[in-house]
């Protein structure tokens, strides 16, 4: 047990950083590689396909805007899932919480009139977060009190949430007309597009600001990521969240209530998912309808996985998924590769990240064994 025995070489610290960022990166590159082989085998030109994909997602301000537009809800649902994971909880039901958040925003945005923008936007955001948290609260209580597994309960609550929205948009909240959707929220309840914030002259001078449909929600999402990062790193709430996620028994001994931490973690996770719903309603659709989310809650799981549950890692991970979906159309149009190939690449990324988790888990276990064998 001499000094040298416990010494970690300096490069080890660097290695962990490289490992953290490097391995998801390798997964993505591998996924693109395997995707290319699949395209080539199916008779398509992978180089042309990825060129088109890139053009469609990062080719210009409008394309970048499209990518960011799609990344916005994914940042928030990714954060939601990641925060739960950091407490050892798998909130698979972010989709349902997102629907409830969207519903709260859509309903209040129509029901409340006469209030200024500065009141309406924060009000809707808070209401949506509360709605999302409320939707996670019942599974949280069930988990804390009787140990009901959150994977089952949050999933079940997703169905309930989705069908409540389905019913409301054909029933009580249906707007006049043929389409099953709510009325549009008031203009004061909407998140404006980024390019709408600047004058024509500014936009001419700084063309990179012409981000198309990208709205202020992206700013909200990035702020949310920073807040979650701060909570996890610098608050007792985050410390306890992580402690419980790693070792609930030691946490309990340290005076942390595991049950209460579980409830808080799932509710915060739900609040972030609810915020994603609000941002979609307030920034994109301005109303809620059955299909207003294309599975953002579920893609959020993949985003969190790729980000290794790091709140700041969620941003690039969400942008990647946003880019894949934004560029798919161009890819089909210009390289004649069916859009569905994109789904294969997304699946490959998820698969490889998950596989990588398994591989590192084994490596870690071997390292741990090796260390304990120095005994």
């Amino acid at each position, binding site marked *: 047990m001499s000094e040298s025995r416990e010494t*970690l070489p300096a490069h080890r610290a660097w290695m962990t950083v490289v490992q953290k960022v490097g391995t998801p990166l390798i997964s993505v590159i591998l996924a693109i590689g395997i995707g290319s082989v699949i395209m080539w085998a199916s008779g398509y030109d992978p180089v042309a396909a990825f060129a088109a994909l890139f053009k469609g997602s990062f080719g210009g301000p409008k394309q970048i805007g499209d990518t960011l537009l799609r990344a916005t809800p994914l940042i928030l649902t990714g954060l939601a899932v990641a925060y739960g994971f950091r407490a050892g909880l798998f909130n698979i039901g972010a989709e349902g919480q997102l629907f409830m958040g969207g519903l709260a925003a859509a309903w209040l945005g129509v029901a409340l009139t006469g209030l200024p923008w500065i009141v309406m936007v924060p009000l809707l955001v808070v209401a949506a977060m509360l709605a999302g948290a409320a939707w996670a609260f019942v599974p949280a209580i069930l988990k804390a009190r009787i140990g009901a597994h959150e994977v089952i309960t949050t999933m079940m609550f997703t169905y309930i949430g989705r069908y409540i929205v389905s019913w409301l948009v054909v029933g009580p909240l249906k707007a006049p007309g043929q389409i099953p959707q709510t009325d549009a929220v008031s203009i004061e309840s909407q998140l404006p597009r980024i390019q709408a914030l600047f004058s024509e002259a500014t936009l001419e001078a700084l063309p990179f600001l012409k981000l198309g449909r990208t709205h202020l929600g992206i700013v909200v999402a990035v702020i949310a990521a920073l807040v979650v990062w701060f909570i996890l790193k610098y608050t007792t709430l985050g410390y306890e969240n992580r402690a419980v996620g*790693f070792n609930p028994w030691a946490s309990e001994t340290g005076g942390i209530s595991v049950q209460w931490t579980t409830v808080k973690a799932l509710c915060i996770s739900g609040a972030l998912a609810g915020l994603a719903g609000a941002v979609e309603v307030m920034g994109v659709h301005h109303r809620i309808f059955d299909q207003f989310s294309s599975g953002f809650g579920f893609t959020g799981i993949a985003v969190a996985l790729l980000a290794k549950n790091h709140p700041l890692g969620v941003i690039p991970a969400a942008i990647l998924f946003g880019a894949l979906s934004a560029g798919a159309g161009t890819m089909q149009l210009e390289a004649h590769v069916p859009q569905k190939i994109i789904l294969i690449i997304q699946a490959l990324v998820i698969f490889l990240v998950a596989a990588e988790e398994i591989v590192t888990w084994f490596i870690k276990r071997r390292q741990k064994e090796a260390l304990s064998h120095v*005994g």
Partner: protein
Amino acid sequence: MSVLELSEITKVFPGVVANDRVSLSLERGEIVALLGENGAGKSTLMNVVYGLLSADGGHVLVDDKPVKIKSPRQAIDLGIGMVHQHFMLVEPLTVTENIVLGREPGRFGVIDFATAREKVQELSVRYGLKVDPDARIMDLSVGMQQRVEILKALYQGARVLILDEPTAVLTPQEAKELFGVVRSLVDEGLSVVFITHKLEEVMSVSDRIIVMRDGRVVGETKPSETDGVGLARMMVGRDVVLSVEKGHSERVAEILEVMDLHVKGDRGLEAVCGVSFNVCGGEVVALAGVSGNGQTELIEAIVGLRRPTSGMLRLKGVDITHASARASIEAGVSHIPEDRRRRGLVLEFDLAENLVLGDHRLAPYATRGIMHPSAITTTAEKRITDYDIRTPSWHVLASNLSGGNQQKVVVAREMGRNPELLVAAQPTRGLDVGAIEFVHRQILKERESGKAVLLVSLELEEVLSLADRILVIYEGRIVREFAAGEADEETLGYFMTGGGGTKLEDEGGTEQAEMTEGNL
């Protein structure tokens, strides 16, 4: 002719030379004790022999023939068996099923259980390893499970048996039985390597002693040629005080008062049945007992991890009967838990984070929910120095420390909090003599500074050397109280195993102890 010979074995882990040109040999019918501190490289060496790790240099010879052992399978085929510290048994399966696992008799994939059972019984009788071949592993005591592991190695044809810290998990009684078994094994012509860091075991069981330190063999001796002090010096590399000197201490005001406490165990049965005692400032009160007699539940009730069903707990006169773990910490109770890896540390946290667990909400570490990393690291650095935690920095994850240093982290945190009452459960379990000496000193320091210490230990030597008063717990009741110096190991052992009589007066002492252990 030696059955096993290691020549110049070297094994390097990143940043650590675990084995540095280690050579040793093992004769037929011989028990060699491999002695060394935690982290001296004993287990690494044996894992190389067993094919779990590959050496970076050197040779292994079996029956004087050089061999390359790349997997446990090959080791087994060469007649080398190993019983690990953590058993590798399939809990829901029976003893027979576990023993034949991997080498099931029968054909076309159909296991011939009758033959298997017969073979197991034959081995069991031949080596005096009594065990029920049809019992399920999960129903067996730890000592019995170990027998199954040994039988498994014998079934696989082991001629060399490596036992990795076999007594770490055993009661003193079970350990004595194990020594008998080991003797009968060598009488049958087997050879045994016995890895340990316990001096008295080495003296009583081995034929030859090989001492390792820092990855090297530093000496070889025989029990007849040395004594505990000499061995300890060889092992640690300096003089070690085997029993600490107890300084003077005034017994002051009552700190903890336990009144007629009843606590239920995990399975709903009453584990603590009406216990009353007190602990005063400036004294160490030891709770001696065979594991599984209600100590765990009693401690958990005191530190707020378990709700008592009735009775009263008072800390300096304040009712803490129903206090939560958090309230209990804030009231001044510190707790060194029995199981440090599970209860004591968040292994994935770094040392700084671990060193404030429990205090993390309080100033100066946090104010209004915001943590202050600089205050945390300042305290961490101070505790790392004060408690001699061997680590390059607080950045290191707790999982990367050796067992002894992990325990020091827990001790540093719990004592560093400056508590009114320190509840220390098996604070030296799995530690080497150097670390034990350190922890004992710290406990006595608490006592001398007027703190109350409740010590729970299975090691009678520890109880006898530290305690001012000894309470013997059996079947959830305190059956005797002794003042320091009033009792010796035999007396304590007698009452610990039900000798003094309780509600189960008719049943035999040691049998009873084993049964209780099995119920854990």
